[in-house]
């Protein structure tokens, strides 16, 4: 909730700041900037690049702030967990009604730091001073009456913490911690957690980066990072190519022949709404968890998309173009080669972009289920060992590669079918 509010505040704050800077600068005089009506005119909406950059920075800022990143100056950090020594008093009341106080010193230590309990002088009286060591973000039971002259088996019980009365099931807040009391009368010490995320839930960005380099050079689960990513990409490309090689001619046949259309329509229309992920169990049964199974799955994921794109490409040809080609003396094959195929290329490219996206998603999911290598397998195994840094690194890389694939496809599209949408 607090994070959401901070995020909204940064969103608004950045908008105000950028607007102020924008007003100060000289205005451009292109057509869009001279429009007086822009609200409601979708064509006048351009992504504000400053907003995009700030948006990414804000994400990393929040990530760093709530994980105590070393990349950020200290004052930007969200309050961290309490670390250090703290103490509280407890009051022991014996069976005969006499009471005595004693002090408990607790060393709250960061993971990997010194975890010994401090030495304390037991002191006088029935109740003796105690000490304990508890790791930050964790909690621990402290049996403070264990070293006392009269313990709970003698009828003694703890009645107050720092003077505040406490009973079994109740709790008291002391400095830097919360103390609960179990039904049997043992104290449960919970040090303040602060607002930062524990590294096992969300590691700091530099940890993730360090881990990325580590895996890139040393590998994880017998394969380096590059190998994991290469295998995922390799499966996608092979599966997609197989799907395209079969799907595109199938789509053309469906677009050009009644018989093909009738024969394959029910199959395509049935398979299209089946998510490829639903085929994973069957593919594992039939082909196992090796490369063949993955490629069959990706082939099936790409096949229907490419067939439908090619079919749409054929149906989309203007009949006047076909007529023109006929009256210029072209044969059926020449019309297929010179009119129908080039005319369908923009549709096929759109289909290929969709298919590559679906294949990339499917391969990661298939690797999550079962694989020996691959980006999905890497993050799945890491998650079993609570290696959150690898999981986050994997997710970021999967996203970056998926985005990269789409950008490459768009560049190829602009280069290979410049006439798209110009017919």
């Amino acid at each position, binding site marked *: 909730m607090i994070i959401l509010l901070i995020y909204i505040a940064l969103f608004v704050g950045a908008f105000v700041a950028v607007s102020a800077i924008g007003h100060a600068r000289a205005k451009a005089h292109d057509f869009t900037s001279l429009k007086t009506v822009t609200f409601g005119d979708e064509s006048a909406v351009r992504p504000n690049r400053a907003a995009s950059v700030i948006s990414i920075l804000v994400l990393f800022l929040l990530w760093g702030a709530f994980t105590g990143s070393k990349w950020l100056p200290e004052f930007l950090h969200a309050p961290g967990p309490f670390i250090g020594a703290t103490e509280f008093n407890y009051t022991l009341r014996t069976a005969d009604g006499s009471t005595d106080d004693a002090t408990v010193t607790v060393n709250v230590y960061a993971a990997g730091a010194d975890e010994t309990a401090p030495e304390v002088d037991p002191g006088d009286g029935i109740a003796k001073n105690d000490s304990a060591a508890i790791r930050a973000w964790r909690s621990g039971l402290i049996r403070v009456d264990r070293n006392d002259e009269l313990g709970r088996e003698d009828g003694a019980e703890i009645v107050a913490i720092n003077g505040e009365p406490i009973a079994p099931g109740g709790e008291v807040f002391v400095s830097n911690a919360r103390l609960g009391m179990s039904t049997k009368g043992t104290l449960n010490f919970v040090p303040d957690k602060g607002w930062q995320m524990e590294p096992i839930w969300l590691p700091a960005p530099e940890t993730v980066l360090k881990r990325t380099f580590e895996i890139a050079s040393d590998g994880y689960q017998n394969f380096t990072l590059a190998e994991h990513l290469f295998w995922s990409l390799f499966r996608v490309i092979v599966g997609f190519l197989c799907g395209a090689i079969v799907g595109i001619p199938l789509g053309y046949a469906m677009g050009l022949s009644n018989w093909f259309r009738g024969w394959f329509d029910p199959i395509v229309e049935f398979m299209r709404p089946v998510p490829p992920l639903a085929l994973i169990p069957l593919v594992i049964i039939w082909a196992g968890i090796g490369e063949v199974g993955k490629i069959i799955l990706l082939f099936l994921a790409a096949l229907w998309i490419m067939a439908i794109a090619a079919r749409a490409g054929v149906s989309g040809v203007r009949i006047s173009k076909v007529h023109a080609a006929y*009256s210029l003396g072209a044969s059926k094959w020449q019309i297929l080669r010179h009119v129908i195929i080039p005319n369908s290329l923009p549709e096929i490219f759109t289909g290929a972009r969709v298919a590559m996206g679906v294949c990339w998603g499917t391969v990661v999911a298939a690797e999550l289920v079962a694989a020996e290598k691959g980006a999905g397998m890497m993050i799945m195994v890491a998650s079993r060992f609570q290696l959150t840094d690898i999981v986050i690194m994997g997710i970021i890389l999967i996203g970056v590669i998926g985005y990269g694939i789409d950008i490459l496809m768009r560049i190829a599209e602009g280069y290979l079918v410049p006439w798209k949408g110009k017919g």
Partner: protein
Amino acid sequence: MSSLKIDNISMRFDLPNGGAVQALKNVSLELNQGELLSVLGPSGCGKTTLLNIVAGFLAPTEGKIVLGGKTVKGPGADRGMVFQQGALFEWMSVRENVGFGPSMKGMPKAEKKQIVDHLLETVGLHDFKEKAVYELSGGMQQRVALARCLANDPEVILMDEPLGALDALTREKMQGLVLNLWKETGKTVILITHSVEEALLLGERLLVMAPRPGRIHREYRLPFAEMGVNSDLREVKKHPEFNLKREEILSMIWEMEEEIMGPSEVAGA
């Protein structure tokens, strides 16, 4: 000399609900080599159907088309077609579009280049030959379509409202171009149009068709196409005879429209 004979053509389309539309009934016509025919008529009179039958895209339910002694069985390179718009191949450059017909025939490159260059010169697009067709204006695109059709050296040129989507100025220029090309090449031309003025200017012979069923209503022989070759079309339009004919044909078409639609509400206002 090969003449084009439209021999007693009838066309009926069966509708899915069991009815039928008589698009054309007993249309007969003979065109000599080098004649320029414009076809005019209210919407739904079967002009485009007739053109599609001559081109071979549709088979008539009765009658036949004979070109140079041979019955037309389907589309062929002897009948070139120019469409209203959107029939150019946007994945090819201007040069490739114009050279499409010769390429399909497997013509040697040098010969093809000569034809293409000559035609692009004729239609005034020599400087644009490497451009993509979608970079050209509507008028230029129609010039490419004309050149593409001529590159194939057809016996008959069929034009389905080729200038319908152009603005008035470009249209006038293009009308001049069509006339000059017709005279230069000596091709038989059938031109379908919605514009009475255009039909008068670009018709050595003018056919007015009537709807329901589509049939020939009236045929004219006109002097204006000859007058318009290599001269100012605006001068031709000032000719008193031109205006008389225009009024005559306009009221003829109005009458036909009223027969179908009922008297126009605007007419009395």
